[in-house]
């Protein structure tokens, strides 16, 4: 089975500061990896997905970016946070048509 680690679990950042959320996956190789954001009224919104190292697809235009420097590592970043970036961010990995999620990272931008 897969285990997904996400950190930090909670983050409070000022507007204009950078962001780095990290996700690592255990128990599988060459996984497809995803970043989702849970926002009020929008459910779980797919932000990025990656099918391999260095391969990133962006689903929505936004202030965020993603990188996959290693097979089982997925990073969500921003150079300058906006208030609207506040939310609950979830990393996910897929297997056999299902997504398995990490515990999530709560980001508050002040």
């Amino acid at each position, binding site marked *: 089975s897969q285990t997904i680690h996400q950190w930090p679990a909670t983050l409070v950042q000022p507007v204009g500061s950078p962001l780095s959320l990290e996700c690592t996956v255990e128990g599988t190789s060459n996984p497809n990896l995803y970043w989702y954001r849970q926002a009020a009224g929008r459910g779980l919104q797919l932000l990025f997905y990656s099918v391999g190292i260095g391969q990133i697809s962006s689903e929505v235009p936004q202030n965020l970016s993603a990188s996959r420097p290693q097979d089982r590592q997925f990073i969500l970043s921003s150079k300058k946070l906006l208030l609207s970036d506040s939310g609950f961010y979830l990393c996910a990995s897929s297997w056999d048509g299902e997504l398995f999620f990490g*515990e999530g990272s709560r980001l508050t931008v002040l």
Partner: protein
Amino acid sequence: DQQVKQNSPSLSVQEGRISILNCDYTNSMFDYFLWYKKYPAEGPTFLISISSIKDKNEDGRFTVFLNKSAKHLSLHIVPSQPGDSAVYFCAASEYRTDKLIFGTGTRLQVFP
């Protein structure tokens, strides 16, 4: 454009009764559907799935129904228990591809 919609943001049900959560989709290419359950500050966990070759799938207290002509699916929980109180998301994809599109979620509250 919200391809997967859950029009009821919340639902309140008495313990022991049936909970019915509904989901509608617009993309006719979707043919694999899942339900996830989510507690606050946790990642969603998989509940049950159904592919388009079926119209019903059952797992214990949970049953998912699919009506392809109406582009509608529903999750039935019988009997409902207080521990079922959570947010439920439906999700859809083109068959067994990994990119799931989620609905907006329905918060279920089961009271004694």
